């Protein structure tokens, strides 16, 4: 059974100039699905349509018995709680502490008044500490987010997303701002934590080798369409050429 089922998704920012054209995708209930493709081909748009940070023009997004594309208001917020998101530039609230950033993953579950007074339920605080320990930042709980390095910030970003107790984890180029070693560590962390919580992951990624190493499935996009969908092993030079175009960049 698939956790997420996208049917005929399309998005036009400008009428007549579609960024996504008729994208259909089923994502299994576990494992990492990597989406690769050139810049501007709609990878970010696809991911942001799923949690409706962007409104799709047409299509269905079936998740937990609901069509996310049709939700609005409170129903949309309730659905968003179940979808964690990790961002390229971490998007932590810089002036809040690490702990507050992790707890912000519970904002869909507590009232604004509770959040204002910082009186989160005991269980939430305990889980936040547990997650911070798992991402190796237990000693940083009181530090302000803008004091952390890129890799540390992304760890907080992962903890925040998992704090939501999500049924799906989205990652929009989570390693694009990081060095190669940190990138691998972040991918390992996402893989391990997602597996522990039994959450499927969809990740947009530019580094094809990194994607191959961690993903059980690769989706190649080009011109707003899916042009490859299959195992990493099936992704050869011919397929990469179809996704990115050109060939001088490919290793012989």
């Amino acid at each position, binding site marked *: 059974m698939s956790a997420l089922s996208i049917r005929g998704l399309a998005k036009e920012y400008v009428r007549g100039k579609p960024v996504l054209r008729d994208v259909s995708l089923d994502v299994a209930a576990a494992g990492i699905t990597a989406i690769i493709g050139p810049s501007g081909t709609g990878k970010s748009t696809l991911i942001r349509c799923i949690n409706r940070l962007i409104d799709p023009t047409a299509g269905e997004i079936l998740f937990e018995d609901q069509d996310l594309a049709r939700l609005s208001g409170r129903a949309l917020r309730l659905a968003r709680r179940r979808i964690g998101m990790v961002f390229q530039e971490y998007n932590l*609230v810089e*002036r809040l502490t690490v702990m507050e950033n992790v707890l912000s993953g519970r*904002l869909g579950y507590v009232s604004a008044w509770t959040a204002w007074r910082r009186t989160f339920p005991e269980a939430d605080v305990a889980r936040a500490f547990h997650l911070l320990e798992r991402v190796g930042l237990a000693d940083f709980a009181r530090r302000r987010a803008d004091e952390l390095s890129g890799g540390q910030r992304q760890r907080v970003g992962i903890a925040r997303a998992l704090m939501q107790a999500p049924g799906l984890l989205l990652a929009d180029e989570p390693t694009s701002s990081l060095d190669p070693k940190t990138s691998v560590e972040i991918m390992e962390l996402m893989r391990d934590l997602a597996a522990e919580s039994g959450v499927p992951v969809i990740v947009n990624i530019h580094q094809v080798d990194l994607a191959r190493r961690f993903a059980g499935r690769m989706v190649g996009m080009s011109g707003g369409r899916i042009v490859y969908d299959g195992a990493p092993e099936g992704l050869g030079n011919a397929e990469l050429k179809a996704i990115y175009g050109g060939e001088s960049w490919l290793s012989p």
Partner: protein
Amino acid sequence: MSATVTRDDFFAPSIGRRLIYAGLIVYVVYAAATLGLSLERIERGIGYGARFLAGFFPPDFTKSDILPGLLESLQIAFLSSLFGTLLAIPVALVSARNLMPRVVSWSGRLIITFCRSFHPVIIAIIAVKAIGFGAAAGVVALTIASVGFVGKLLAEAIEEISEKQIEAVRATGASFMGVIVFGVIPQVVNRFIGFVAYETDANLRNSTMVGVVGAGGIGGTLFSAFQRFDYDFVAGIVICIIALVMVGEVLQLVVKRVFR
């Protein structure tokens, strides 16, 4: 036409600029002449000024109505700053174009523009007419001015916040108020405290002035001392006001340092 350009050509003012300079000089001469601002008048004025300043010495601090007047000014300043900045928060949130639909933010901006349109003393004159003489009118006048000033600055600060941080908070499923509490406020709170400190300092100065039109505070004492030609008392009051404003300046610096 030759393409060579001499050095003089580079820096010579254009015809347009020359006309503006010439026009400016003509207007200054015309304005001074029609106001009777002759050399003889200036000389006479300096004579008056010297006698006036001589009247300041020695300053008189002994009259008993300095302290109550100063304390009343201080109270006007603090109350109006408190009410004004508290009211400015919702006005600014409503006015921020990145949080509200255009119609709503437009009406918020209208409130701010209304509050900023008049000098505090003009509002004080109206407030005195509306609710009667005394400190209450001063508080109302400076509160309105504070809503306009802090509201405008805070609305602009909110419009400059990072959208990425807001996006992340929205993605957690937070409600609108949740986004305000965890996404917007943390990004503007320090600047807001700076605005409040600045506005309190400004109100401290303005509160010494609204008394001139009968809206309470030391200004009223100062005005009546002037009308009695009681210049040594005037000097005493002026020195006390300077001291008060300097204390405000220092307080502002302290607050800014603590909340950096």
